[in-house]
C-alpha cells in the first residue's frame, strides 16, 4: 500500500533526495525537484546548515553540483563554520562541485534613483550555476535584500520573478527565511515559494534544547505532518521520524534463549522471539540488570552482537558486579561482540538520546539491544515524550529485526504492573520481578506477566542469584501466601520428612499384613488338624455302632434258636424275608 502511494507520488512529482538522514524518509524522497523550497525558522535553528548539507550531500552522493548564495556570512566564515561538521567546502569548490557567492549589501553606500531590477543578482546566480553545471541552489537568507533595498514593490516583484526563473532553470532550490512574529517569514516569502515549506524550530524545555523540523506544506506530495526532532552533530543533520512508518515489521519465528534455562522453560522451553521487545520490570535490587547480563552473555555465546546502553552504571562497574554472579562479560567486550554505551539520561535531551541510539545501532549493527533502565529518562522529561521516544526506539529496533531488552524500575508504592513509562502496549514479553517479604526475609519472585504469541507459564518462581548466575525455583504456596527463601527450604525439609514418614508407614503396614496372614494360616492349620481328629473319632464311633447293631442281630438269632417253637412259626415268615 505504502509502496503504491510512493510510486504514485513519484510519478506525479520528481523528487530530489537531500541525503539528509531521515529527511528523505518523511518527505518520501526529498525536496521537489526543480522547484524552490522555503526553509524557515528563528535564528540559530540550523537553516544554513540544512542548505549546506543539501548541497554537499547532493554533490557527493547524487552528483548534483550546487551553488550557495549567501546574503549573510562571507565565504570564509561559511567554510570555517561548516568545517566543524566535517564538510570540506574548499575542496569541493576547487573541484567545481560547489560554488559560493557572498552577496554583500551595504545600505549606506546605495542610492536609489529610479526604476531598477535585480538582474544583476540573476546574472550572478546564472553565472554561478552555469560555471559548475549546478542542479541545486541555496539562497541564504534572501530576506536580507529587504534591509538593503528600499523599494519594496520592486523587490517583491523581482523575488517573484526570481523564483519563477529558478523553476525555469530547473534547479532544486532552498530559500531560507527568518521567522516572523505571526508569519512563517518576516517578509512573507511563503507567498512566493509555495511548493514546499519546511519549518525548523529550536526549543528549550527544562534546560534541555530540542530541535524540531516540520514539513508545513508540500504541494503534490505526501509527507509526514508531525514535528520531527532533529540533531546537528559532527556528522551533520539528522532528522528522526517520530512515529514509525507503521506496524509493518517483518516477524521472525526464531526463538532465542534468555540465558536462563528455567526461564526458557517458562516460555515454551525456547525463550524469546527474535525481534521482539522484552521488558523486565521490578523494584530496586531485584536483579533486572542480572537478567539483562544473562541475556547479553547468551547472545555473545551464540556469536551475536550486543549493544548495551547503561544509564546508571559505568561499563566497568557493571562488568564487575556481574562477575560476582558468575557472568563474565569482559571477554565479549574485548572481542567486540559486546559494546557499551554509557551515559547519564540527563546528559542530553530525549531526541539526542534517540539519535545516539539510532546512530549507535546503525554503526554497530547489533542483533540485541539492551537498555538499562529506560525509566530514568523521566527525570528530565515528561512522560508523554518519553513514551513517544520509546515507541520510536521500539519501532526502529523492530524494523531492523533487533531483539530489545529493556529494564524498568518500578517504585514500590505504585502498582507493580504499571510500568512507569506506560509502555506495556509496546512490549511483547514482560517479565515482572518482585520482592516477597515473609518471615523477616526479602526474597525475589519472578513471573511472566505477558508474552505475546506463546503459551507461557503462569507460575511464580523464586528468583535466586547464585555464584553461577540466576536460578529459578518453584515457590510453595502456604497458608500465609507464597513461601520463599528459608521458609521454602523449611517447607522442603518438612515435605521430605513427611515423605519419609509415609514410606515407613507403608513398610509397617506391609509387615502387619504379613503377620496377619501368617496368623490366619496357622489358624487354618489348627482347624484342619482338629477337624481331622474329630473326623477319625466320628468314624470310629460309627463303626462301633454298626458292630453293636450286628451283634444285637446275632443275639436275637441265638435267642430264637433257644426258643424253638417260636422259631418255627417265625420260619415261614422268615422265608418271605430275603
Amino acid at each position, binding site marked *: 500500500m505504502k509502496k503504491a502511494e510512493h510510486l504514485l507520488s513519484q510519478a506525479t512529482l520528481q523528487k530530489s533526495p537531500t541525503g539528509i538522514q531521515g529527511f528523505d524518509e518523511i518527505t518520501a524522497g526529498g525536496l521537489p525537484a526543480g522547484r524552490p523550497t522555503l526553509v524557515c525558522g528563528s535564528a540559530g535553528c540550523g537553516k544554513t546548515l540544512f542548505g549546506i548539507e543539501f548541497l554537499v550531500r547532493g554533490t557527493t552522493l547524487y552528483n548534483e553540483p550546487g551553488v550557495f548564495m549567501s546574503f549573510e556570512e562571507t565565504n570564509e566564515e561559511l567554510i570555517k563554520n561548516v568545517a566543524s561538521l566535517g564538510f570540506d567546502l574548499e575542496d569541493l569548490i576547487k573541484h567545481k562541485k560547489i560554488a559560493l*557567492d557572498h*552577496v*554583500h*549589501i551595504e545600505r549606506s*553606500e*546605495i*542610492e*536609489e*534613483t*529610479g*526604476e*531598477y*531590477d*535585480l*538582474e*544583476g*543578482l540573476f*546574472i*550572478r546566480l*546564472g*553565472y*554561478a550555476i552555469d560555471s559548475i553545471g549546478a542542479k541545486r541552489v541555496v539562497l541564504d537568507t534572501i530576506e536580507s*535584500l529587504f534591509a538593503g*533595498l528600499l523599494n519594496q514593490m520592486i523587490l517583491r516583484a523581482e523575488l517573484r520573478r526570481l523564483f519563477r526563473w529558478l523553476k525555469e532553470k530547473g534547479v532544486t532550490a532552498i530559500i531560507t527565511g527568518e521567522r516572523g512574529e505571526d508569519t512563517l517569514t518576516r517578509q512573507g516569502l511563503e507567498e512566493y515559494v509555495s511548493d514546499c515549506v519546511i519549518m525548523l524550530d529550536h526549543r528549550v524545555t527544562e534546560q534541555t534544547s530540542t530541535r524540531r523540523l516540520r514539513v508545513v506544506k508540500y504541494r503534490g506530495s505526501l509527507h509526514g505532518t508531525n514535528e520531527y526532532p532533529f540533531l546537528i552533530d559532527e556528522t551533520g543533520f539528522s532528522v528522526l521520524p517520530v512515529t514509525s512508518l507503521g506496524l509493518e515489521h517483518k516477524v521472525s519465528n526464531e526463538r532465542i534463549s534468555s540465558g536462563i534455562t528455567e526461564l526458557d522453560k517458562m516460555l515454551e522451553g525456547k525463550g524469546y522471539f527474535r525481534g521482539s521487545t522484552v521488558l523486565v520490570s521490578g523494584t530496586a535490587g531485584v536483579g533486572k540488570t542480572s537478567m539483562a547480563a544473562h541475556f547479553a552473555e547468551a547472545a555473545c555465546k551464540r556469536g551475536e552482537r550486543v549493544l548495551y546502553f547503561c544509564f546508571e552504571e559505568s561499563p566497568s562497574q557493571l562488568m564487575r558486579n556481574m562477575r560476582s554472579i558468575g557472568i563474565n562479560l569482559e571477554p565479549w567486550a574485548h572481542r567486540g561482540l559486546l559494546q557499551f554505551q554509557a551515559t547519564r539520561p540527563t546528559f542530553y535531551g530525549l531526541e539526542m538520546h534517540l539519535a545516539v541510539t539510532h546512530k549507535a545501532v546503525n554503526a554497530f549493527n547489533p542483533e540485541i539491544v539492551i537498555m538499562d533502565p529506560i525509566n530514568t529518562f523521566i527525570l528530565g522529561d515528561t512522560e508523554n515524550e518519553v513514551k513517544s521516544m520509546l515507541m520510536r526506539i521500539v519501532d526502529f529496533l523492530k524494523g531492523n529485526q533487533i531483539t530489545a531488552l529493556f529494564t524498568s524500575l518500578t517504585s514500590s508504592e505504585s502498582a507493580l504492573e504499571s510500568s512507569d513509562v506506560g509502555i506495556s502496549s509496546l512490549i511483547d514479553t514482560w517479565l515482572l520481578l518482585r520482592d516477597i517479604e515473609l518471615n523477616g526475609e526479602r526474597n525475589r519472585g519472578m513471573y511472566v506477566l505477558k508474552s505475546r504469541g506463546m503459551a507461557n507459564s503462569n507460575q511464580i518462581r523464586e528468583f535466586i542469584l547464585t555464584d553461577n548466575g540466576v536460578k529459578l525455583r518453584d515457590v510453595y504456596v502456604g497458608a500465609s501466601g507464597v513461601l520463599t527463601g528459608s521458609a521454602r527450604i523449611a517447607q522442603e525439609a518438612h515435605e521430605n520428612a513427611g515423605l519419609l514418614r509415609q514410606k515407613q508407614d507403608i513398610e509397617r503396614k506391609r509387615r502387619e499384613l504379613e503377620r496377619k496372614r501368617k496368623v490366619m494360616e496357622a489358624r487354618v492349620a489348627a482347624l484342619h488338624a482338629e477337624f481331622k481328629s474329630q473326623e477319625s473319632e466320628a468314624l470310629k464311633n460309627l463303626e462301633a455302632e454298626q458292630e453293636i447293631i450286628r451283634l444285637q442281630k446275632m443275639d436275637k438269632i441265638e435267642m430264637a434258636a433257644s426258643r424253638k417253637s417260636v422259631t418255627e412259626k417265625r420260619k415261614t415268615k422268615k422265608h418271605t424275608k430275603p
Partner: protein
Amino acid sequence: MKKKKEEAKETTISFDEAMPGLHEGRYILRLFITGTTAKSVLALTNLKKICEEYLEGGYELEVIDLYQNPGLARDEQIIAAPTLIKKLPLPFRRIIGDMSDIEKVLMGLEIKQLQIRPEND
C-alpha cells in the same frame, strides 16, 4: 554623519577653488547595464546628461554590459541593474536605478551637495 559633512565641506572648498582643474578629484565611474533594456538605455542617457552638465571633462565613465561580463557581477557585488559605481573620489557609492531622479544621482555622486552648499551658506 558629522564626519561626512566635514568631508563634504573640504570637498566644497577644493571644488570651488579648483573648478577648472577637476582632474585632481577626477570621477571614476562604472555603469553596469544589462543589454539594451529600456532601463539600461534610460540610465545611460540620463547619466551622460548629468556628467556632461556637472562633471564635464572631469570624469571617466566605463559602461559594462553584465551579459557580456557576467563574472563581474560577482566581483563588483552587483545585484541591481542598472548600477553605477562611483569608485573615486571616495567614498565608494552605488547608485542604482535608471537615473531618472537626477537629484538623487547628484546626491549619490556627491555633486548635489556642492551645488546647494554655496546657496545655503
